C-alpha cells in the first residue's frame, strides 16, 4: 500500500531542519518523510482492527516533526519508522466509519494493571507509552506498529474508536480529534470556575477550536483572541470571541480591559486571570506572561519546544504555566457534538491526495498567510486536491 513513512535518518532530519527554518513545510521535500510502497501493518492483538483512513489531517505537531523543529524529548516515546497522521476518520471492515482516538495508553498496550493515570481515566497522562507489547509511541501516528492516517491502512485498538453517525460528513469527522484537544482545554478551564476574562493567543486550527470549545464548555465573561489574518479574525469572531485583535495589540487591549498600568518594557501591572496559549512559541509564551494577571495562569495548549523565557515575572507575580495535552475519551464525545453544533467542518480548507504530500505540507505550514486553516490528506478513492475555501 501507499504510505508516507518517516524514517530515522539523521542527515535528512538536519536537512529538513534547515529547509524548514528557511521555508515552512519545506522539510517534506528534503527530509526523512517519503511516500513509499509498504506492507500494511499487522494487527498487534485480538482487540485490534484495521482502519482504512478516509481523511487524515495535518497537525502542528506533524509539521514540527517534518520540519525538524520538534523537541528531542519525544525521541524515547516514538518508534521508527512511523507513518504520521493521528487526526483520522476511517472506515472499518464492517463498512462503518470511526474517528481514531490516537493516545496509546495501557489498554492498547496490553498492560495490566493499568497505570495510575489510566486507572483514573486520564489516558493522556499514561505512564506506559514506551512499554507493553507495542513499540514506543505516545500516539498512533508516532508508533512503528500502528501505522498512521497518512496511508491507505492502519490498525487501531477497539478502545481507540469513536463511531461516527451517518449525519456527520467525513470532512466534519476529521475535525473531531483537534476539537477534542480544544474541548480538553476548555474543560480544564471550566474546572477552574467562572472566568471574568480569558485571552486566547493564536487563531490557527487549535486557537479557533479552543474559542469554540470555551464558548461551549466554560463560563467566560470576555473572550479575547489574537488573529494575524483577516480570515482568522472573522472565524474567531463567528466562533464566539468577543474581541479579536492583532497579536501586537493584545497587550494594549488587556491593559484597557483590566485598567492595568504599564511598566517600562511593556509588562502590565494587572491582566487577565487566564491566558490560553494555542501557539506555544517563545513569543506567544512571553506575551502570555506579559498579559496574565498576578496569580493567574497560562494554559499551554499549543505544542512548545525549546524556548528561552524570563521567568522572573512568573516568580514575582506568582503566575503559573500549565500544560494541556491531548484528551480523554469523554473529550471526544463532546468534540463530536461540538463539531456538529458549531459547524466546524468549515475549518477544513483544503485536501490533497497522498501523492501530492509536499504541496499539502507546505500548504498546511503556511495556512495562515494563504487564508487556510486545516489541511488534510484525502485517502478516498479518486481523491483529488481541492481547496474548500
Amino acid at each position, binding site marked *: 500500500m501507499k504510505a508516507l513513512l518517516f524514517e530515522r535518518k539523521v542527515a535528512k532530519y538536519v536537512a529538513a531542519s534547515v529547509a524548514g527554518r528557511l521555508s515552512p513545510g519545506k522539510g517534506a521535500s528534503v527530509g526523512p518523510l517519503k511516500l513509499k510502497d509498504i506492507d500494511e501493518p499487522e494487527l498487534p492483538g485480538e482487540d485490534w482492527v484495521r482502519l482504512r483512513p478516509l481523511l487524515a489531517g495535518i497537525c502542528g505537531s506533524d509539521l514540527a516533526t517534518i520540519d525538524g523543529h520538534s523537541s528531542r524529548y519525544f525521541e524515547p516515546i516514538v518508534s521508527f519508522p512511523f507513518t504520521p497522521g493521528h487526526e483520522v476518520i476511517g472506515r472499518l471492515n464492517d463498512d462503518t466509519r470511526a474517528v481514531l482516538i490516537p493516545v496509546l495508553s495501557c489498554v492498547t498496550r496490553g498492560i495490566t494493571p493499568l497505570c495510575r493515570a489510566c486507572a483514573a481515566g486520564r489516558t493522556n497522562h499514561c505512564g506506559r507509552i514506551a512499554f507493553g507489547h507495542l513499540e514506543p509511541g505516545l500516539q498512533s501516528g508516532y508508533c512503528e506498529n500502528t501505522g498512521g492516517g497518512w496511508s491507505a491502512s492502519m490498525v487501531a485498538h477497539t478502545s481507540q474508536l469513536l463511531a461516527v453517525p451517518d449525519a456527520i460528513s467525513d470532512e466534519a469527522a476529521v475535525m473531531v480529534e483537534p476539537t477534542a484537544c480544544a474541548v480538553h482545554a476548555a474543560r480544564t478551564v471550566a474546572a477552574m470556575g467562572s472566568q471574568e476574562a480569558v485571552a486566547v493567543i493564536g487563531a490557527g486550527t487549535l486557537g479557533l477550536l479552543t474559542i469554540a470549545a470555551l464558548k461551549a464548555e466554560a463560563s467566560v465573561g470576555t473572550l479575547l483572541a489574537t488573529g494575524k489574518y483577516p480570515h482568522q479574525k472573522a472565524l474567531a469572531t463567528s466562533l464566539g470571541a468577543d474581541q479579536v*485583535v492583532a497579536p501586537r*495589540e493584545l497587550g*494594549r*487591549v488587556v*491593559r*484597557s480591559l483590566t*485598567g492595568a*498600568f*504599564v511598566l517600562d518594557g511593556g509588562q502590565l501591572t494587572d491582566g487577565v486571570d487566564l491566558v490560553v496559549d494555542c501557539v506555544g512559541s517563545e513569543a506567544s509564551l512571553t506575551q502570555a506572561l506579559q498579559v496574565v494577571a498576578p496569580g493567574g495562569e497560562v494554559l499551554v495548549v499549543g505544542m512548545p519546544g525549546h524556548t528561552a523565557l524570563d521567568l522572573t515575572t512568573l516568580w514575582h507575580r506568582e503566575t503559573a504555566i500549565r500544560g494541556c495535552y491531548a484528551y480523554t475519551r469523554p473529550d471526544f464525545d463532546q468534540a463530536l457534538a461540538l463539531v456538529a453544533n458549531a459547524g466546524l467542518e468549515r475549518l477544513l480548507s483544503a485536501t490533497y491526495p497522498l501523492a501530492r504530500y509536499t504541496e499539502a505540507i507546505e500548504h498546511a505550514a503556511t495556512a495562515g498567510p494563504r487564508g487556510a486553516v486545516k489541511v488534510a490528506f484525502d485517502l478516498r478513492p479518486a481523491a483529488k486536491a481541492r481547496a474548500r475555501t
Partner: protein
Amino acid sequence: MPRPGFVLDVDKSTPPILFHHGEGFRLEKLPAGRSRVIYPGEPLDALDDVESAIADALANPMDMAPLKDLLTPGMKLTIAFDDVSLPLPPMKRPDIRQRVIEQVLDLAASAGVDDVHLIAALALHRRMTENELRHAVGDRVYDAFAPQGALYNHDAEDPDNLAFLGTTPHGEEVEINKRAAESDLLIYVNINIVSMDGGHKSTATGLASYRSIKHHHNVHTMEHSTSFMDRHNSELHHSNWRMGKVIADAGVKVFQIETTINNDTFGQDGPMSVLAKREWEWSAKDRVSFIGMQQGLKRLSSPTRRKIFQSHRAPYGVTSVQAGAIEPVHEKTLQHCFDQHIVEVEGQTDILTLGLPYICPYNVNSIMNPILVMCLGLGYFFNMYRGKPLVREGGVLIMTHPTPWEFHPVHHPSYIDFFEQVLADTTDPKIIEAKWEKQFAEDEWYRHLYRTSYAYHGVHPFYMWYWGSHALKHLGKVIIVGGDNRAVARLGFKSASTLNDAFEMAEDVVGPQPTITHLKNPPILMADVK
C-alpha cells in the same frame, strides 16, 4: 488694503490648485465648468501698537470697571490662559498671551496683589511642557511664577482642586478649577483663532473637569451644533453659555480678555509664503521655490519633515484686543473673527474637497494620527460654515492627507487603544459613546498619564470622533486621497490614489458631473453659505 476672500469658478485657464497634504502638498487640476475654489481673505491689517491696544482694553473694558480698579491688595487673583492648542501653528514670539499677561501682572503688582496664580486652561488636553509654557507666557513670567508653583497646568482629575458650582436648568453639572472658582477675580486670556473659541467656553470648558465637559462634548450636542463655528446655532455654545451663568451665579467674577489674529500664517517671505498666494499669481520665484520645497521634502524622512513643519512659527498680526464682561467682549471678538474669515458662498456643492495640513489643535509638537485626521476634516473644516454646510446632505467629502497609522505614544496613548479596539468594533459615534466612553474616561492608567505625563485624557479620542459626528450623519461618503489604506479603512472611509479616482468613486454617490467645491484652508476661512 487686503483683499477679501472670494470664490473662484474654475475654467480651463485655471492653474492646478495647491492642496495641503500633511507635511507635503499636491497640485490638483479641478474639472472646469463645475468646480469652484473658496479662497481665504488676505491678512487683515494688524494693530500698529499692540501694547497700547492691550493697555486700552484693560483700562476701558466692556461692561466692567477698569482692571486696575478691580485689583486690591490681599486679593486672590488667578490668570487663566489658552493652552498649546492655540493658535495654529504657534505664533512667533512674543506670543500675544505673554504680552497681555505681562501687562496684567504689572497692574497687579502696582495694586499690591501678591497672591497670583497662572493656570494653563487645558481642560482634558495634555499638559504643556516647560518650553511650551515659556513660549506662551514668556521667560520673565515663567521664571517669576513657575518655580514657586504659581504657574501650572489645570488638572481636570484632581479631586482636591475642583469646585462644584451647581447645575444648569438642563441638568448640566458645572465643576471647575477650585483655585479659579475661589479667586476674587479670574482673568481669562484668550486667543480666538476661530469663532468656536472664547466666550463662556473659555472657563466653562478650559478650566472644567470631565464631569462637567461630558455634558456638551457628546454626540447629541455635536449633531445639534450647526455649526459649532457659529456660536448662535451651536448647541455646544448654548451649553457653555448656560454653564457660564452658573459660574457667574456662584460668584465667580471673570474678567475676559480676548484677542484675535490675522491670516498671516505663512509669512510674506520664505518658502512657506507661497502657500498663502493664489496660484495664478505665483511668480517665477514662487514656482521655483515651491518646486524646490516639494523636491526637498520628498527626500526627507517623515520624522524630519514633521520636525521642520512643527518648528514653523507664524508671524500673525494681532487684529484686536477686547476686555471686560464675557458676552459683550465675545460678540466683538466674533465680529473680528468673521471680518477675517467669512467668505460668502452661493449654494451647496455635491463634493467638498479639503487639503488637510500637518497640524490641528491636538498635534502641536506631535503626530497627526488618523483620528486627528478625521477630526480636522470632518470636525473642524467641515464645520467652517455659517448657514448651511458647504456640501449638500448625502454629498461626498474628499480629503487629501497621508493619514499614517502612526501615533505619538506619550501624547496619545488612549488614541492608540481607541483606534485599535473601538474603531475595530464600530465607527458609529452613538454606539461608541454608549459602549466604550465610560471605560476609557475612567481608566486609571489614562488618568495617571494625563495627570503626570503629557497625555491627552483617556476620553479625548472620543471627543475627536464626536467632533465629526455632524459630518458623518450629513455625508454620503468620505474619501481620503493618498492615505494609508489600512488606516483609512479603519476610519470607515474609502481610499483613493488620486483625486481623479476619488471623483470617480464619488460619482457612485452623487451622480455624474457633480459640482465640486474646494475649501482652500489654511489660511483660515469660513464659508457663509447662502
